[in-house]
Every structure is written in structure tokens, then in C-alpha cells.
């Protein structure tokens, strides 16, 4: 019983990905490209060489952070859609410290990362307090705060930290940049993301607090009746998930982008939500999904060069994966589907007998 449900929760996303690719191929064919060539170039672009793998992993890094942010919050029943805003607030604070404090090198890096996490956590806490003490819908609040954060970042790169005539901030000093791994595009930020993922995993499934947090997320009333400090857990989940996103923002700034500019971090929040949902709120699965999404994006550039299919086809595939996965996961929970599965296994047993 347990194994079959595990199998199903693994199969649903896999089948969804296959379906999404099939539809993607049909679209490519309609656009006049050879789908097989396109898929091949997609693969080569993402994983064809060590260099490309490095690029894919670098691209996946911010996605892992926002994915973990969503994952952690939803485990506590909090629908934090504000990963993007928290990511940005982290990167803004990080940018200030990196460029204005005069500190450089490792101390600056550590300070930047911590400050970024704190900034993200505090930004999320606004929504947390409004939910806990004013009973507000955290989805709307976090989304609104995303827009505020984006605009605030605009103020920073067009005004306060503007780099001459170009609407972007000055670059962080070279010594404060995160070091690359094996000379590839991927930096220590990726390692940081993996560590964050493992920590979240350990916390949720191997500690008493994590266990209680999940209980709160699954049934708030019962958790309250069983003596858990529900409000504290909800606030904690806002802060921690915001901190993860904020850390991601700092890491992205110090590892890949080096400066704030229009479009920085854009869309990462919703991407994170999508990945957490496809990964069924499992932190490690979320990481795998993030790498898959990054591969799609990196590979699609090569695909465009080779076949002329626009890169946004990868966005469509990605969007279809989420549409199918969420529907699929709902479908397998239907009693009719369970009965259907039951009949299938009955038959098999009868045939075996």
C-alpha cells in the first residue's frame, strides 16, 4: 500500500513531463522544426558538455532556493507566494553591503549571505504577522509585497546605487564574488543551495520541531488541540522560508549576476511554487525538479540556435508539467481511481493464481 502510493507519486510527475514533452514536440513540429533535432539540441545545450552542465547547475541555483522557500512554507500550511519579493529584498540588502560597506572578501561574503537571509525573513514576516494577527490571506499579501519589492529594487538600481548612465547598480567587488567550481559557471552558491535543501529535509523529517510543523500544516485544529503553539510555527515558517529565499537572492547576486538590473530574479517566486508542487513538497525532489527546469531553460537557447524554435517553448513545457502534475495528483486521490487501481491489482492476483 505504502509502496504503491510512493510509486504513484513518483509516476505522476514523470508521466506529466512525458506528456508535456509530447505536446511540446507537436508544437515544434507545427512551427516547422524537427522535434527530434530540437530535443537533441535541448539535451546537448543542457548536459552536452561539462561546461553546459555547469551552466545548468548555475541556472538551477536560484530556483532551488525559491523552490525550498515554497516547500518549507507549504509544509506548515502557509501559502507563501512571495518568494520573489523575499529573494529580491535579500539581494538588495546584500548589494548594499557588498558595494557600500567597504568590507571585502570572505567576511563580506558571510555578512552578505546572513544579511540577505535576515532581510528575506523579515520581509516575509510582514505577511506572517498580518496572517496571524489580522487573519489575512497570505497569498494576496505576499504577492502585493512582491510588486513592492520589485519596485523598490527599481529605486535602488535607477537611483540610489545607479552605475552612471546605465540603469543598473555597480558591480560587487571581485573579491566578494563567490568562487566558481572547477572553473565552470556554477559557483559555491550551488553547494549552498544543496546544503540548504539537506537541512530543510533533515529538519522536516528528522527533528521533533519539523514533525510538529508538518502536523500544523496538515491539520491546524488538531495541532492546536494537541498543544502545539500553532501561531509560533506559522510565523516561523514565514521567517524561515523568507530567509531561504533571501539567502538565494544574495547568493545569486554574489555568484552569478553581480549587480541588480531590470528583470533580476523575475519570475523565480512562481517558478519556486511550481517546483515545490511538482516535487510534492519534498525538499530533495524539489531540488531535482529545479535542476530539470534549469536544464530546460539553458538547453532551449541551444535549441533556438539550432532549429529556430523560440526559447519560450521551454516555458510552455514547464507550464504544462505543472498543469498535468497537479491535476494528476488530484486524480489519483479520487475514490474512482483508487477503485480502478484496486480492480487492476485484483485481476493481476487472479491471473497469478
Amino acid at each position, binding site marked *: *500500500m*505504502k509502496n504503491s502510493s510512493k510509486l504513484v507519486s513518483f509516476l505522476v510527475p514523470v508521466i506529466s513531463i512525458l506528456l508535456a514533452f509530447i505536446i511540446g514536440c507537436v508544437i515544434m513540429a507545427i512551427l516547422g522544426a524537427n522535434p527530434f533535432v530540437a530535443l537533441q539540441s535541448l539535451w546537448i545545450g543542457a548536459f552536452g558538455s561539462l561546461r553546459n552542465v555547469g551552466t545548468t547547475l548555475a541556472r538551477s541555483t536560484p530556483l532551488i532556493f525559491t523552490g525550498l522557500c515554497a516547500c518549507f512554507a507549504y509544509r506548515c500550511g502557509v501559502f507563501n507566494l512571495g518568494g520573489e519579493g523575499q529573494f529580491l529584498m535579500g539581494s538588495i540588502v546584500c548589494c548594499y553591503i557588498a558595494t557600500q560597506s567597504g568590507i571585502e572578501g570572505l567576511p563580506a561574503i558571510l555578512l552578505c549571505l546572513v544579511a540577505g537571509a535576515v532581510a528575506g525573513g523579515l520581509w516575509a514576516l510582514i505577511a506572517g504577522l498580518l496572517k496571524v494577527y489580522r487573519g489575512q490571506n497570505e497569498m494576496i499579501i505576499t504577492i502585493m509585497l512582491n510588486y513592492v519589492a520589485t519596485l523598490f529594487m527599481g529605486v535602488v538600481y535607477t537611483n540610489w546605487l545607479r552605475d552612471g548612465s546605465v540603469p543598473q547598480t555597480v558591480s560587487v567587488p571581485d573579491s566578494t564574488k563567490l568562487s566558481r567550481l572547477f572553473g565552470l559557471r556554477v559557483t559555491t552558491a550551488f553547494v549552498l543551495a544543496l546544503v540548504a535543501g539537506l537541512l530543510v529535509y533533515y529538519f522536516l523529517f*528528522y527533528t521533533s520541531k519539523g514533525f510538529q510543523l*508538518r*502536523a500544523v500544516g496538515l*491539520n491546524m*485544529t488538531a495541532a492546536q*488541540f494537541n498543544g502545539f503553539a500553532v501561531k509560533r510555527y506559522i510565523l516561523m515558517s514565514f521567517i524561515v522560508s523568507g530567509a531561504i529565499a533571501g539567502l538565494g537572492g544574495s547568493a545569486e547576486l554574489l555568484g552569478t549576476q553581480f549587480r541588480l538590473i531590470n528583470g533580476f530574479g523575475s519570475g523565480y517566486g512562481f517558478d519556486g511554487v511550481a517546483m515545490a508542487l511538482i516535487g510534492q513538497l519534498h525538499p530533495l525532489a524539489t531540488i531535482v525538479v529545479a535542476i530539470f527546469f534549469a536544464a530546460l531553460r539553458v538547453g532551449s537557447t541551444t535549441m533556438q540556435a539550432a532549429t529556430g524554435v523560440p526559447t519560450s517553448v521551454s516555458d510552455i513545457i514547464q507550464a504544462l508539467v505543472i498543469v498535468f502534475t497537479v491535476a494528476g495528483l488530484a486524480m489519483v486521490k479520487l475514490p474512482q481511481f483508487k477503485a480502478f487501481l484496486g480492480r487492476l491489482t485484483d485481476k493481476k492476483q487472479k491471473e497469478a493464481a
Partner: protein
Amino acid sequence: MDEFLRMEHVSKRFGDFYANRDINLSIRKGEVHTLLGENGAGKSTLMNVLIGLYQPTEGTIYLNGKAVRIDSPAQAVKLGIGMVHQHFMLVEAMTVFENIILGDRNTKGIFIDKEARKKEILELAERYGLDVELDKPITEIAVGAQQRVEILKALYRGAELLILDEPSAALTDIEVEGLFKIMKKLTEEGKSIIFISHKMREVLRISDRITILRAGEVITTLERSETDGQELANLMIGRELAPSHYGKVEEPGSPVIQLRGVDYHKESKHNGLNGVSLTVGRGEIVGIAGVDGNGQSQLAQVVTGVLTPDAGEVDMKGSKVAQFTPNGFILENVSHIPEDRNKMGLIGNMSVKDNIVLKSTDSPEFSSAKGYHLKKKAIRDYALKMQEKYDIRCTSIEQETRNLSGGNQQKVILARELEGHPDLLVAVHPTRGLDIGATRFVHDTMIEARDKGCGVLLISADFDEILEVSDRIVVMFEGQVMGVFSGKNPPIEEVSLAMAGK
């Protein structure tokens, strides 16, 4: 008498489970026909088939001698079948009037003709003695009045057959009298009534004929005049039920919890407490008797720290409680079997194992490093031990509790709540919806806890249950304590009067 409805060989299957099997039933015009059976005997399913919510897997339904298909509730309404559900199907955000005309197909026009409809409804109400206030929102009228709205709703749709599902469960004695009067009037006018109940006294009083259901099948149909309570009870349960009598404790130990003049939203008659004082001592079971919705839920939540009283004092083992939090009471060794196991007791999407250790993962037994590392093996071993001890039937301790039967869910809660040897156990409707075997298990476990020195506060709407296990009986009505009686040979007449507020 003419026959109105007949079911022949009706079965309803869910997967491999037969909720109803080969049912034959006939309802005459102008009779009160009782369906008698335990929880899970298939009464509700059968009625849902009759009102078109479920489709029968096999069998035929005849109405006035003609075979009919009832494939939707709309069809049932058209055929003159109306039902008053145990949990009222009333839209709380709407008024009485709106609820009655909801889904109306008999009148033409797009807009609601308020005046004309109201006139029709009031005429009907007068004819059957159904007293209702049309413009009041549902939330502002009493339970008995809500029930009259439900009956009126069915009559307004032209119901010839009225199904009343446990109509007296939530009513006071006076309200029940009123209901019976209405039922008499209805049958005099030629309407048929299917009455679903397991309160023997009422069944014997009001029925013309009685059909007994057991495990989804019809056992027999009897004329009221040819049977008695003992026979019905035996038929319903399927064996001679030896009246089990637990020994009663007359001298309880020192007080575990004491309430003095506790108020909570006392202006609310149905969801408040008004000057409640009571004591539960070590080694006794105090049963709170009363009709549902007279403050019992609030009482349970005050003595488990979920609600903070507005006034009054609560002493826990001799010292005054300063702060009301569930955790504070848990630390005082108070256990709670909450009234809604799925909503309040269990995390349905977590496993049996996780639910058993839900409260204790912080303890050194199950985690090290101040809770930063769970001892998974210790948890597993413990859960297996509990599964065995409390006879929890599940495919494995990893099974999610939402997939368990009610009885097994309750056993998971018992294992969690009683294993720590609590000083006080608050049990709210602990056997609601359970079969006889599971009920007996719950009662045995409570008695066992009592004998080990635990004080038990039992809240139940099931009067028989209260009589069975309580050492003392406290009656509540509209948030007030109406009287305290000994559990040994209690004066049943007096207790029932107190339950009705007299």
C-alpha cells in the same frame, strides 16, 4: 391501506462493500414506518438511494405501483419524496424564506415573487401546525425551529413521503413532543413518514410499523402492536445483549479539577457556559448528560485549555490555573478525546505511528539533542507495541489514519491519550459513530483508567452511555448545571427532566 412506495431487491455497493443488500421495503400511505438499526446498518445509504443521491447497484423502486428511476434529487422531489437530514441541509447565510423556496421549479418567472410565495408558505405552515419566522436568518433560530423549516421545505415541494433521519437527536423533550404532534398531523393528512431512530422509547411510541436493518440487510418488518422493546433491541443487535454493568465508585479521591462559577459567552444559550461549578475527583467518572449544544463543547474546551473562560476559577490538582493553553493542560497531565476525531484529534494525512507519538516527540524517549534528532526506531517500536496493546487494525503502522475506520481511529487516540497515565481524561462523545465492539472497548479502557486513579470527565449525548459508565451524573442545559445525581441507581425520570431544563 394503500401502498405508496415499494423497494424490491435493492442493493448498493461501494467497491466490494455492500452498504445495502437485497432490500425489500414497503411504505403505506399515512403510516409512520420506522427504520431501526445501529450505526453502519445501512439506513443512511438506503435513504440516499431513495432521494436520488446514490444510484442503486441493483433492484427496483415502485411508486404507487409503477417502477420509477430516481436518478437525481430533483427527480425525488418531483416524485414527492422529501427528506429531513440529521445534519440539516439549510444554508446558514440565508433566511428561512430563502431556504424554503430554494431550488423551486413550480413557479414561473425569473424573479422571486416574495409576497405570493410567503402567503403559500404560511398557509402550509398553518395547516400542519409548523410555526416558523420567515424573515429570520437560519443562524438566529433554534434547532427545533430549523427542523420545522426542513419539514416545511419538503412539504412546500409537495412531498407525499417524508423521511426523518434521527429527528429527535438534537431536540429537547418538549421539542420532541412538538415534533410528534406534527408527525401525527401529517399522517392524518395521508402523508407517509419514514422515521429513522434508535431511541427505543420514541420508536415504540410513534411507529405504525418497524423495519429492522442489520449489516446492510433487512432482518424483518414488524407491526408495532406485535412487538416490544426487548425483541427490537435483540433483533437490531443480532444477539442477546447482556446488560453489562460496571462497578460504580461512590467515594472518589482528591479533586483533580474543580470549576467554580465558570462563565464563557454566557448570553449564548447553545454555545456558552453560565456559572458552571463541578468537581472531578481521582478515580471517578463524571458523566455530563444533556442534549447536544447546551455548552458541552465549551466545557470540554475549557477543561483542556483550548478556551479561556470569561469569569470563574478553575483549580487543577489544588492550584489555580492562571493561563489557559492546551499545552499547559497537557503538561498538567490532562488527556483529551475530542468530540471530532478527524478535525481535532488526528492528523489524517499522517500515519498511525506519527499520530500515536504526536504529543511526545519532544520527550527524550523519542528524540535526542533537545528534539533535534528523532529516534525513529524507538518511535516505530513503541507504535508497534501500542498497535498490539490497543488492537488497532491497520495495514501497517505507516497507514494514514484518515483511511482507518472510526473505531480504529478512536483506538489510535486512546493509545496516545491514555498511555501516559493521565490525571484527568476529558472524553467527548468518545463512542459516537462506533460499532458495539469498539464502544465496549472504549468503555473498558475508560473504566480501567479510572481504576488506576485517573479522573474522567465524560461528555456524551448518548444517555445510555452516561448511565452505563458514570459514577456521578451532571446534567447540563443551556450552559448551566441543572443537577448532580449519583451514578448508582440514578433517578432516571428526574435526570431526563433536568435535561429538558426543568
